[in-house]
C-alpha cells in the first residue's frame, strides 16, 4: 500500500474519490456507504452524514472514511487500548485506528458506555442534556442501545474523556461495565407498562447494579458477569441466553382466571381457536377442555406464559409472585451457547429485605465462582466444569428437581452413604 496522503485526499486507500470539485461538502465521497442510503429503512449512513455536515467534526469525516475503506477492503482497522476515567478501571472502550497514517482524523475513536435507567424509560430532558454534553465533547454519534444495555457514546478523544464523564456524572449518568467484572444490566418494561410483570424488576435492577457498582467500575473477577431482569417468563430481555444471572418473574399459586373474560374470548374466537391456539399449545397439557370452557390444572402448569399471552384479558399470573434465578447463560464463545439453567425456582421479591437477601445470595455465588473459576471462564462454564451439584453444595443452595429436566441416566457417581 502507498503512504498516507492525507485523509481529505484518500485516493490511495481505495475509496476512489477525491475531495476536490464539490467544495460545499464537508465529507469525502463514500460511494459504498452511500448505497446504504437507499431503501425505506432509516439509514444510519444518512444520519452520520447529516451530523457530520452540520457539526463539521473532523473525527466524523475520519470515521466515515475509515468505514468506507473497510467496506472496500472488507477488513476492520481498530485496535484496543486502555483509556479510562479517574478511579475506574473500565467503561470506556478504547479504539485507535490501525490506519491513522492513511486517515488521521479518526486516530482515536473511543466509546463511553453509559448506564441508562432500568427499562430504558426516559424523559426528554434527560436525553437532551446527555445529547448536549455528548455533542460538546464527543462525536455526537451514539447507539441506543448496545446489546448489554448501555447507551454507547461512540467517538471521543482520550483528552476529552474525563471532562465529558464529569459533566455526564453531574447529571446522574455513570459509566457502564467492561472487562472482567459486573456488567451493565437490562430490564424489560416491567411493571411500568406490562400487565404480566411478576416483580418490580426496575427497582431490583437499580438495587443490584448499585450494589455491585464497585466491581462494575473496577473489574477484577475471572471474567464478565451479567444480570438481566425480565419481569415474567416471556423473558423480553432474552436473559436466559445472554446473562449469567437471569432474574425472571414467576408465580407460585394458580393462574388468576376471570371467567367472564374467558367466556367473552371463546364467544369471539370460537372453541376451535380455544383448542388449537391455547389448550393444544400448553407444553404440559395442563389445560383441558371442559364443557366448552377451559380448566387449568395448576399442578401441571410450568408457568410458560402461553395461555396468559393468548388471553391477556382473561388470565393473569397468580398472586404469590416472585422471581426465579437462572444462571450461566452466555452466547457462543468457546463452549457454544449456554442457555441459563434454573437454579433458584422461587424467591419472594417484594421488600427491601427480599432484595437484600437476594444480593447476599448473589455475592455468595460470585465468591464461589471467583474461587472456583478459571481465567476467562463464565460462571456457567465453571458450573458445567465443576458440576451442578458441587456448585449447589459450594454455595449452600438446596437441591430441587426443577433444576434438571430429568435425573441422571448413568450410575456414575460416588454417593456419601
Amino acid at each position, binding site marked *: 500500500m502507498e503512504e498516507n496522503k492525507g485523509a481529505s485526499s484518500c485516493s490511495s486507500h481505495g475509496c476512489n474519490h477525491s475531495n476536490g470539485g464539490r467544495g460545499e461538502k464537508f465529507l469525502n465521497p463514500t460511494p459504498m456507504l452511500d448505497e446504504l442510503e437507499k431503501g425505506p*429503512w432509516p439509514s444510519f449512513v444518512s444520519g452520520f452524514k447529516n451530523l457530520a455536515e452540520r457539526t463539521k467534526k473532523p473525527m466524523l469525516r475520519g470515521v466515515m472514511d475509515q468505514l468506507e475503506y473497510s467496506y472496500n477492503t472488507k477488513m476492520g482497522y481498530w485496535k484496543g487500548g486502555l483509556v479510562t*476515567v479517574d478511579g475506574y478501571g473500565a467503561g470506556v472502550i478504547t479504539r485507535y485506528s490501525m490506519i491513522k497514517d492513511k486517515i488521521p482524523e479518526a486516530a482515536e475513536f473511543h466509546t463511553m458506555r453509559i448506564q441508562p*435507567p432500568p427499562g430504558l424509560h426516559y*424523559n426528554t430532558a434527560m436525553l437532551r442534556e446527555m445529547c448536549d454534553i455528548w455533542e460538546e465533547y464527543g462525536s455526537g454519534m451514539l447507539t441506543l442501545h448496545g446489546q448489554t444495555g448501555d447507551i454507547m457514546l461512540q467517538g471521543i478523544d482520550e483528552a476529552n474523556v474525563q471532562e465529558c464523564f464529569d459533566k455526564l456524572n453531574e447529571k446522574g449518568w455513570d459509566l457502564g461495565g467492561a472487562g472482567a467484572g459486573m456488567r451493565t444490566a437490562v430490564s424489560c*418494561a416491567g411493571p411500568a407498562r406490562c400487565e404480566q410483570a411478576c416483580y418490580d424488576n426496575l427497582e431490583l435492577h437499580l438495587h443490584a447494579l448499585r450494589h455491585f457498582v464497585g466491581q462494575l*467500575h473496577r473489574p477484577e473477577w475471572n471474567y464478565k458477569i451479567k444480570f438481566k431482569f425480565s419481569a415474567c*417468563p416471556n423473558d423480553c430481555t432474552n436473559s436466559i441466553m445472554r446473562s449469567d444471572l437471569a432474574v425472571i418473574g414467576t408465580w407460585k399459586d394458580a393462574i388468576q382466571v376471570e371467567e367472564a373474560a374467558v367466556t367473552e374470548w371463546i364467544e369471539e374466537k370460537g372453541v376451535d381457536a380455544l383448542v388449537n*391456539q391455547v389448550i393444544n399449545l400448553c407444553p404440559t397439557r395442563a389445560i383441558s377442555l371442559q364443557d366448552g370452557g377451559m380448566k387449568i390444572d395448576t399442578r401441571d402448569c410450568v408457568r410458560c406464559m402461553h395461555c396468559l399471552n393468548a388471553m391477556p384479558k382473561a388470565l393473569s399470573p397468580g398472586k404469590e409472585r416472585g422471581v426465579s434465578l437462572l444462571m450461566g447463560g452466555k452466547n457462543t464463545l468457546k463452549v457454544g451457547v449456554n*442457555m441459563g439453567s434454573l437454579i433458584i425456582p422461587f424467591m419472594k421479591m417484594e421488600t427491601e429485605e427480599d432484595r437484600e437477601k437476594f444480593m447476599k445470595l448473589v455475592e455468595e455465588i460470585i465468591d464461589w465462582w471467583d474461587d472456583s473459576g478459571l481465567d476467562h471462564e463464565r460462571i456457567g462454564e465453571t458450573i458445567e466444569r465443576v458440576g451442578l451439584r458441587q456448585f449447589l453444595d459450594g454455595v449452600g443452595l438446596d437441591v430441587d428437581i426443577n433444576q434438571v429436566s430429568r435425573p441422571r441416566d448413568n450410575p456414575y457417581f460416588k454417593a456419601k452413604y
Partner: protein
Amino acid sequence: MSSPERTWKTIESGPHTYMEALHPVVRKNYGNWKYHEIPRPGVLKHVAESGDALFTVRAGTPRQDTVDMVRQLCDIADRYCDGHLRFTVRNNVEFLTPKEENVEPMIRDLEAMGFPVGGAGNCVSSVSHTQGWLHCDIPATDASGVVKSMMDSLYDEFKHMEMPNKVRLSTSCCSINCGGQADIAVVVKHTRPPRINHDNLSMICELPKAVARCPVAAIRPTVVNGKRSLMVDEAKCICCGACFGACPAMEINHPEHSKFAIWVGGKNSNARSKPSTMSIVAHNLPNNPPRWPEVTEAVGKILTAYKAGGRPWERVGEWINRIGWKRFFEETGLIFDEDMIDSYRHARTTFNQSAHVRF
C-alpha cells in the same frame, strides 16, 4: 487521563434513576396494568386496573443514532407524550401517551421523519445487532450495513402483522455473536484457522493467555526467526476465533474467507416450548458489502416459507419442529450438508437416536 483541575467528585451512581422518566399515568398505574391490545400495527394499548389506558406508538430506528436524531425523537415525545419515551431491547423507540387522539398524528409525524411505525405483535421487528467495522476491534463485517440492507427488504413485514408469531432477527460481525440467538440470525463464520502475524505477535501478545483461550488446545508456543511466537495445529483448529480476541496477531478475519452463516430457531421466551438454541442452515455466503444481497435473499426464503406454513403462535423453531428439518430444507430451498452435523462437545445428543424418519 486524570485532569488535575478536576472539580467534580465522581458519584458512583450506577444506572440512571428511572422514576422521573416515567409518564405520570405510568407512575400512577405502576404494577397495576390489567391487559393490553394491539389495535393496529405498531400501537399497543395497555389498560390498567384503574381503567386508565395508555397508548404506545413504536417505531424503528437505525440504532446507530446521532444526537440530532435523538433530539428529533424528543421533539415528538414533547409534542405528544408530555416528554416521555422509552426504547425497547430491540432498538425500537416507544412513545407513551394516555391520549388516544395523539396516536394518529404522532404516527404521521414519525413516518414523515422516516421512522417506520410497526414492530409490534406478529411482525418482523428490528434486528438486534453489533458494532462491526464502525467500532469493534475484531469484526469481519459491518453489522449495521447488513441490517440496513435486510430491513429495507423487510420493511413491510415490520409495518404489518402477518407472521404466525413474533419474528426476531439478529446479526453479528464475528462468531462470538454479541447479537444473540434469534428466530433467524445472520452471523459471520470464520472458515480458516488464524494466520499468525509472527512479526507482531511477540510484541502484542500475552502468549499464555492466547494459548489458554483455545477451546481445543490447538495453539502451541514456538520460536520463529528467533522470536517467541505461537503456532496453530490446523487439523485441530475449529475456526472459533477465540484466540483473536486474546491476541490481535492471531488473524482470523480475511476479506474472502470470512463468510456468513444463517441460523434459525433460536427462541428465548419460555412460552410453550422451552427456550431453544439456533441451528445452522446455510454457510459459505459471501461477505459482500455494501448490500450483502445473498444474505438478504437467504433470510427472505426462510421468512416466506414460515409465513406460508407457520400456524398461529408457532415461532420459527416451533414451526420447524412440527414440519421437520427435512421439509424445512425442502421448502426453503436451502441445502443440508455434512458440515451441519454437530461435531462439538455434545454432538452425540443431536444424533437421531430413534428410527423416526421422514421421507
